[in-house]
């Protein structure tokens, strides 16, 4: 039986596992990796090997893992109120830079907590999901959020407050965060998205941000500081520049960004935007991709360029990203890779508030799910992205919690086929729970799809 500490909370268990990353050297050899990998649990092994598989990206992989640890350390410090800090729980639709505007606050993304559990904890999120189900939470609720519920009903560290900004855009997510507040007793702050993208809706959203900022001031005991905001937004701007540079690199054929680092860039945007570490991580990924483009050190000849019209499966890092890359299949991005940088004006407090408000308004999913016509906004945005990177196909990971996405997926498949003449694979499964859809299932489905309707001539993939 697995030895347990006195807690069963994701944060503290994650600290135990990812704390080891601090001691990693900047580079390890193939032999060292081969020696290290068998020493850790299979789920952590898949993550480590995925990040460290390619020698030209190995330093980037180590630094990214360390960066994730910096984020986790920030979460833990804030939860423990080190130096008077406080921890703010947020969904993935909330730009973390809003929270970083306060020195004494730190954002805890529910979905990144889920990622930590999936990436490194023995048994991933299963026991937490089971605990949430035992409370009576419906099994159709978002598994990432159910995991957080299951985690935080345990004794141990918790966020001081939850900012619920999926209200108006995503029912399952907003409902889960409200449940967390109502059941566990964590105070909830609301930032509701009016269900349209009109100028009036943008104004209402902006006014509510001002209210939220006042609430965060009260929580932190800290007056919102213009200098701090500018510092955070300047970090954002640097990271944006690198983001768009990465976007240009994605257009190259073959794509020089390893599949797993496309995901790492998304996670960096979600967790560390506005921090120096966020800039550093983006720089590392961009530099490594540029070097690969120059050196031509590709893993395999690129045979297909695939856009995920929804989100990846996160339960097996190696099986998701490297396994396909080894077969020449490039994963160019997902819906959580879609961001829009607003007009940039950091000249005053008001203009910076506008920047934050507009960033969040057009943030991933909020822009699509919170629009007046969800399915069309999703389609239009994805179409543009797929055109930019010249994708051969799209895969919709049918994550059952996302009722809005699944309700529009048939329409998406029909319309993207008409507009781009590319096929779409609709998969059913669970992004966060491998019991629902193990890697072998989606690997086989995707290979069959690519072999049947994407790959030309004699090129065929094998499972």
């Amino acid at each position: 039986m697995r030895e347990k500490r006195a807690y069963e909370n994701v944060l503290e268990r994650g600290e135990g596992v990812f704390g080891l990353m601090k001691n990693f050297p900047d580079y390890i050899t193939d032999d060292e990796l081969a020696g290290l990998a068998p020493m850790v649990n299979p789920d952590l092994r898949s993550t480590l090997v995925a990040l460290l598989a390619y020698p030209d990206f190995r330093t980037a992989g180590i630094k990214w893992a360390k960066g994730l640890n910096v984020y986790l350390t920030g979460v833990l410090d804030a939860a423990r109120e080190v130096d008077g800090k406080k921890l703010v729980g947020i969904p993935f639709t909330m730009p973390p830079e809003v929270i970083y505007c306060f020195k004494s606050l730190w954002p805890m993304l529910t979905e990144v907590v889920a990622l930590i559990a999936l990436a490194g904890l023995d048994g991933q999120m299963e026991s937490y999901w089971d605990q949430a189900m035992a409370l009576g939470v419906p099994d159709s609720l978002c598994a990432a959020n159910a995991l957080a519920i299951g985690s935080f009903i345990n004794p141990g560290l918790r966020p001081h407050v939850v900012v619920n900004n999926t209200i108006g855009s995503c029912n399952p997510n907003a409902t889960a965060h409200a449940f967390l507040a109502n059941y566990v007793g964590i105070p909830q702050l609301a930032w509701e998205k009016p269900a349209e993208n009109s100028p009036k809706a943008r104004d209402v959203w902006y006014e509510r941000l001002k209210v939220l900022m006042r609430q965060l001031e009260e929580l932190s005991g800290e007056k919102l500081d213009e200098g701090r905001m500018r510092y955070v937004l300047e970090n954002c701007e640097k990271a944006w520049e690198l983001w768009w540079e990465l976007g240009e690199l994605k257009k190259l054929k073959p794509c020089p960004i390893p599949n797993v680092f496309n995901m790492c860039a998304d996670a960096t945007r979600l967790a560390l935007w506005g921090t120096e570490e966020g800039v550093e991580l983006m720089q590392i990924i961009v530099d490594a991709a540029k070097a690969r483009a120059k050196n031509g050190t590709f893993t395999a000849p690129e045979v297909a360029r695939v856009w995920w019209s929804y989100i990846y499966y996160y339960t097996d890092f190696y099986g998701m990203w490297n396994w396909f890359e080894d077969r020449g299949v490039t994963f160019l991005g997902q819906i959580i890779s879609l961001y829009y940088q607003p007009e940039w004006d950091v000249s005053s407090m008001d203009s910076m508030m506008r920047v934050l408000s507009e960033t969040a308004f057009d943030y991933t999913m909020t822009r699509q799910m919170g629009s007046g016509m969800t399915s069309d906004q999703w389609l239009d945005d994805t179409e543009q992205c797929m055109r930019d990177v010249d994708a051969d196909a799209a895969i919709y990971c049918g994550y059952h919690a996302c009722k809005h996405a699944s309700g529009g997926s048939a329409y998406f498949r029909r319309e993207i086929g008409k507009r781009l003449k590319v096929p779409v694979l609709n998969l059913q499964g669970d992004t966060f729970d491998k019991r629902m859809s193990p890697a072998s299932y989606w690997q086989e489905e995707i290979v069959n799809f690519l072999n049947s309707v994407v790959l030309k001539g004699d090129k065929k993939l094998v499972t």
Partner: protein
Amino acid sequence: MSVGGSQKVDVFSEAATIYSSYVDDWKKKGGEVLGFSCLFTPVELIEAAGLLPYRLKAMGNTETDLADAHLSLFNCGYCRSLFQLVLDGRYEFLDGVMETNGCDHIRLMMENWQHVLDPKTFHYLRVPHTITEETLGYFEDQLGMMRDFLSKSFNVEISAADIKAAMARMDGVRDKLRTLYGMRERTRPAITGSEVQALLIAGGSLRSEDFDTLLSDVIAEKEGVELEGYEARVMICGALPDQISVIQAVEDLGGLVVADSLCMGSRAFWKRTGAGGEEPLKALAKEYLNSILCPRMFLNYVERRDFVAETAKRAGVQGIIYYYNKFCDIHGADSAVLRRDMEQLGIPVLVLEAAYGAETDMGRIRTRVQALLERIGR
């Protein structure tokens, strides 16, 4: 249940029919019908435009093959069943459709409706999920847009006086519903839960003046009734959009449903206080956002919980059944917190998650209801 003196209305039949004789009469007289699905749709504005507001029914339909080509199996059965009926042409008599963002399932059902059939007269009313100064102002603007849409689409002037008159009529209906619910909560109740549910479903596609008359008839006919023979007083909560069979099953087993917190039921009207003297759109915005106790709203759980607890106490409820359709996260999550809190108050709670309209599920439901009734010591 038939009511209404010489011109008897079979309430159960009206509730169970999409194109009812009432709608047929209305259409034959040249009347127009506007369909909607969510209790946050201000029917007062529809009535002020001289239309018949029609609350869409899925009628327990379980054939969803056409709808499933557009919606996923993870969308709730009510929406898929309703969309199937739309695709089957059962709602061709509608002259317009009103969408609200009640939940993600409804939103996507309505979007697919637009993609597939492109109804000419369609409007999306955005209803906020929180109550703040900004959202109240936003909703008031939305109501203005809805009024303008109705005015333009149906070529009718809608004055403030028209809206106020419709609001007064709806207030009258709500007063009568409160009276009826009072009769239901008596020590010896006058009406069964399934009869009330049938009335509410039937009333969802009647003009307020006619629903008011129907309610008056029911109140008059039931006034002296004292039901006997039941063994437990039960409250039903959650989402039971247009289903009667679940309540009937409870009552067949010896429970009597004496109170509810359902979207067709008390949740929609109990706390409504009336139009007051304000500008009508502002008053409507406040009424709808402040008074409807639906879990689609955020930051108001305590109010919802207290409402259920107070109702249960007032009606002498011995046990609560929380029912919701599979894949309804809003009610599913609500049920888990509410169950904990009601159990802490000493009220046994049975949570039932079931596929919409699935009669094959009734055996399981009956068994679980029996277990609840045994638990509360009938």
